[in-house]
């Protein structure tokens, strides 16, 4: 879902950069001082995990693949705000060093994957209803991670659809359904992987799931 250079109009690039910058500042403020010292190691390892997981594409259907985005996963481990920041680091490194996602599309990519992914945490909490274990938690993680990929694809479809390169080929009427079609399927992979990993981590190492403290704190 990483948008390369050349797909977005200047207006969309700028708009999405501003929107993402506002979210990043907000997340930075919310995340600051909310964590114990040991948190830096958890943040580092989980971000590194997401980076390599994103390199492992799984086949979906009809010669198309997808990979874990990892926003919901990070939000369970780090909480929603630090998850947005962590994913932003991953996207920044991908754009700077690996030509995965264009530099000019970074703002859009941050919104589509980091912001939507990290904030999908609130959907987990809504469904789990403050219970941090058991079936409702697993269901919340499954649904939220699927929704985060589908919403990211929707945003991506809109962003490219209103930009000239794709608007000449039909615009959002074409790009949105096409993006949704593939990502409804890719999202299932995201949901399966995220649910498996988070429920296992909950069983083995519940202490590292910093995101769970955001359940108890209520609406903060």
């Amino acid at each position, binding site marked *: 879902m990483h948008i390369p250079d050349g797909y977005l109009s200047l207006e969309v690039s700028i708009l999405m950069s501003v929107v993402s910058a506002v979210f990043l500042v907000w997340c930075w403020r919310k995340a600051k001082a909310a964590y114990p010292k040991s948190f830096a190691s958890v943040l580092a390892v989980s971000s590194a995990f997401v980076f390599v997981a994103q390199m492992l594409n799984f086949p979906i259907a009809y010669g198309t693949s*997808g990979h874990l985005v990892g926003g919901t996963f990070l939000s369970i481990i780090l909480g929603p705000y630090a998850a947005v920041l962590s994913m932003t680091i991953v996207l920044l490194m991908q754009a700077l060093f690996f030509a995965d996602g264009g530099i000019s599309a970074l703002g859009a990519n941050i919104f589509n994957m980091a912001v939507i992914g990290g904030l999908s945490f609130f959907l987990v909490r809504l469904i789990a209803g403050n219970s941090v274990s058991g079936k409702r938690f697993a269901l919340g993680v499954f649904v939220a991670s699927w929704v985060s990929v589908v919403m990211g694809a929707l945003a991506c479809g809109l962003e490219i659809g209103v930009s000239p390169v794709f608007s000449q080929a039909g615009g959002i009427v074409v790009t949105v359904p096409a993006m949704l079609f593939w990502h409804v399927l890719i999202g299932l992979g995201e949901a399966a992987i995220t649910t498996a990993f988070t429920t296992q981590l909950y069983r083995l190492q519940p202490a590292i799931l910093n995101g769970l403290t955001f359940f108890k704190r209520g609406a903060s």
Partner: protein
Amino acid sequence: MKGYVKALIIIALGFAILAPFASTYPDGLEKVAETIGIEEPEPLWKGLMPDYTLQTVENPYVSTLLAGFCGMILVLVLSYALGKAISKSN
């Protein structure tokens, strides 16, 4: 600290084992562009390891593996710094 090192080794090993099986099919967005008939434009900035390969390494597996490890280290260092920055004040 030890637990984190262990986790990193598991992640690196898991990546080394799974990397050869990663699908080379286009991803969702690439497929959409392909179907519509839009070619991916040249990136404005190619980076040092475009498409997760080291240009100087011939073997594609080793090349991807090293690029992945480089990325891991970059992400590790930066996010550790971020973690220190946001957990410092308490």
